[in-house]
């Protein structure tokens, strides 16, 4: 880089929020509603709710290549396309250009990123499950990682608060390992899913099947300009009805409404400035991607919500005499303990029957089978692995049935293939990943990006416990389908690499001891109390539940704590 010219903005904000995704949106809303003048920084472009969802209403035939992408475009997203679904034409604009935004892989890591206002809150899977005390106590119990500094009772009211605000459709089951919530009416199971539900209850006393819990409005209740799910299942494109929760449809407009938010897109935060005398952070350094200027913005409180890996990268880049290894990194744990959920292991089967039954509406949701392994009692304990997994999946009439397949081609074949095919049902496990110091990300200062900033190098892999757990995920899925009367059961085991679950987390973990963790029980950096990290980086263990709801609850809790602290600053 040439000599740096830094423009310092004279305004001192009450708070700065880095990032506008699931966590950043919540931090912005809570801080602004508590009266704090808040600068919200986003590295990517502006996205306005509804008007900036260009593919939201396209039918397949409205797209030249029917949702495929020209190979020249695909070549720019080879890493982003590793999921197989993210970079279709309908949603490719929500994922980064890998050539412009490179990272390095000592071991393969599938890092899916969305650089724009709203981040991955636009494309998230919307599955929303609470963690329980089984999860918050897990590390302490088996000695992997460090103990969480919070328990379920600390976060439970914030789950209530968040669920009531965003709308989560689901069913209460009274399970200790998967706490009940404040729910919108549940979506419906189809007849084959209903069939498996009954069969599970008949054949097992330790497991049950329920409809997925999703962040969708499913009633006529009013949610600040958002309305009921229309069952189009085009969520990933951005929803013109605002039926599912995103920052763009929900938290950012709420923050905007207070008059306290300044939203600044095209602003890459790369450093938090630390003042050794004050023992506090005083602001952030930003590159404006349009003017290429380096700017400094000052604030009393800073929230890191840039996503797990990006927040950690900012902290690692924030070096000073006091913190030569990155802000708050006395423990040496910053960048370590990467976790994700391992998935792609399970089974599917065909169901003969219900030929005269079908469904209406493209349900943007599947089924859920809550965790039934290692719940803390003898009966559910598994001798080969620690922790557990849940299943997601569903049934549908898709594939062409056998007898139509035999027709192969021709007039009769054509008429038959216009009818619904056979019923198939799939179950795929979502497994917990143990925290492990060896799984890490570091910065490479030899490979700089377009902004002259260091790039991230990943060195993480699935370890033994995950691999052993997968065998049970596959075996139990096949067994449940078999007991449910399904035929032609096929198992699958697509291991892929960490990151594929798009639940990457853990690189600036919360803990009780500053010697082994970065953040305290309110998500403050132990040694720099006016910096909060509330995205996935804060996670001490992973649970097996989809994590976004927890990020929201943790962020809301931390922001309210910060607002209280602010008054005494």
């Amino acid at each position, binding site marked *: 880089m040439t000599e740096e010219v830094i423009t310092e903005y004279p305004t001192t904000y009450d708070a700065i929020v880095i990032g506008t995704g699931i966590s950043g949106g919540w931090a912005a809303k809570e801080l602004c509603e508590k009266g704090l003048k808040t600068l919200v920084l986003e590295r990517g472009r502006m996205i306005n709710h509804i008007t900036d969802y260009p593919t939201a*209403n396209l*039918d*397949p*035939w409205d797209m*030249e*290549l*029917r949702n*495929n*992408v*020209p*190979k020249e475009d695909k070549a720019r997203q080879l890493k982003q396309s590793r999921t197989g679904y993210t970079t279709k034409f309908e949603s490719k604009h929500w994922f980064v250009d890998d050539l412009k935004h490179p990272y390095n892989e000592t071991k393969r890591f599938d890092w899916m990123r969305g650089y724009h206002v709203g981040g991955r809150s636009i494309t998230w899977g919307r599955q929303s499950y609470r963690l329980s005390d089984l999860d918050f106590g897990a590390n302490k119990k088996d000695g992997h990682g460090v103990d969480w500094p919070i328990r379920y009772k600390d976060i439970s009211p914030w789950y209530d608060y968040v669920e009531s605000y965003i709308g989560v459709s689901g069913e209460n089951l009274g399970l200790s390992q998967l706490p009940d919530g404040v729910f919108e009416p549940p*979506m*419906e*199971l*189809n*007849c084959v*899913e*209903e069939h498996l539900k009954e069969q599970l209850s008949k054949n097992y006393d330790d497991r049950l099947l329920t409809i997925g819990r999703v962040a969708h409005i499913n009633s006529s209740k009013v949610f600040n300009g958002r309305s009921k*799910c*229309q*069952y*189009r299942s085009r969520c990933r494109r951005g929803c013109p009805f605002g039926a599912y929760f995103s920052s763009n449809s929900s938290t950012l407009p709420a923050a905007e409404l207070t008059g306290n938010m300044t939203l600044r897109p095209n602003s890459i935060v790369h450093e938090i400035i630390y003042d050794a005398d004050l023992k506090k952070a005083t602001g952030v350094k930003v590159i404006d991607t349009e003017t290429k200027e380096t700017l400094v913005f000052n604030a009393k409180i800073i929230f890191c919500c840039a996503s797990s890996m990006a927040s950690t990268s900012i902290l690692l880049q924030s070096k000073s005499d006091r913190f030569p290894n990155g802000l708050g990194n006395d423990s040496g744990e910053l960048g370590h303990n990467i976790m994700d959920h391992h998935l792609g292991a399970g089974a599917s089967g065909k169901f003969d029957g*219900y*030929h*005269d*039954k*079908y*469904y*209406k*509406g*493209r*349900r943007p949701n599947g089924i859920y089978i809550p965790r039934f392994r290692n719940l803390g009692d003898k009966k559910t304990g598994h001798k080969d692995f620690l922790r557990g997994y849940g299943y997601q999946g569903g049934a549908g*009439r898709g594939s*062409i049935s056998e007898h139509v397949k*035999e027709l*192969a*081609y*021709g*007039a009769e*074949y*054509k*008429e038959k*293939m*216009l*009818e*619904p*095919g056979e019923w198939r049902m799939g179950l795929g496990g979502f497994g917990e990943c143990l925290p492990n110091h060896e799984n890490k990300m570091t910065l490479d200062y030899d490979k700089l990006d377009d902004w002259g900033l260091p790039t991230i190098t990943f060195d993480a892999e699935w370890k033994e416990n995950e691999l052993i757990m997968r065998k049970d995920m596959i075996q139990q899925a096949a067994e449940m389908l078999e007991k449910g009367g399904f035929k032609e059961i096929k198992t699958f085991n697509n291991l892929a690499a960490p990151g594929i679950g798009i639940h990457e987390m853990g690189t600036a973990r919360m803990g009780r001891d500053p010697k082994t963790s970065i953040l305290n029980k309110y998500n403050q950096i132990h040694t720099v109390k006016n910096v909060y990290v509330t995205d996935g980086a804060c996670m001490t263990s992973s649970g097996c539940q989809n994590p976004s709801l927890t990020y929201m609850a943790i962020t809301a809790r931390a922001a309210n704590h910060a607002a209280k602290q602010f008054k005494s600053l």
Partner: protein
Amino acid sequence: MNRRDVLKGLGLTLGYTIAAPSIMSLLHSCKTEAKVWTPQFLSITEGIVLTNLVDLILPKTETTPGALEVNVPEFIDLLIFKVYEDEDKIKLKKGMESILKALNIVDDNVSIIRTENYDNLLAKYLRSSKEQQKFYTHKDNENNEDAIIFNTLTNIRNTSVWAYKTSELVGENILAYDPIPGNQIGCAPLEELTGGKAWSL
């Protein structure tokens, strides 16, 4: 010019084929949705062969349009041209060459190939026994000439079905089209919901 060659090839085929009405529709674009097209990836001859195969795979019937009416061959060519990776393009090209060879097409004689020749080829491969298909799809046999033909025809058939179902005419008028369902019903009689048809979206 290319287009004239296409027309010539198809025109000469007409006299011999029972699939004439569909191919006519290709020619008389003013009467239907179908367009006369010049391939972007395939050769003219390959385009003619593809058109004839697709017409037999999803022919026009009394109740529903055929694949040619919704421009399936043209779309397949576009898809290969714009979307296929180089490796898949080479594979497809090799497959088309094998198909041409199996149909005894050399030089400019594509016009004398009869519908029954195309039909025999499709029947021989796509209606082969399960054991035979297992052989064709086995990784060890990927360079086997018959396996190449089988896999290419299967690809053409599957892509045709998908392209047909995702075309505007079929997607909006033939399949059950409901762009904004508004509500969800988990389980109800098929007849009641769609009259026996699959949902379009």
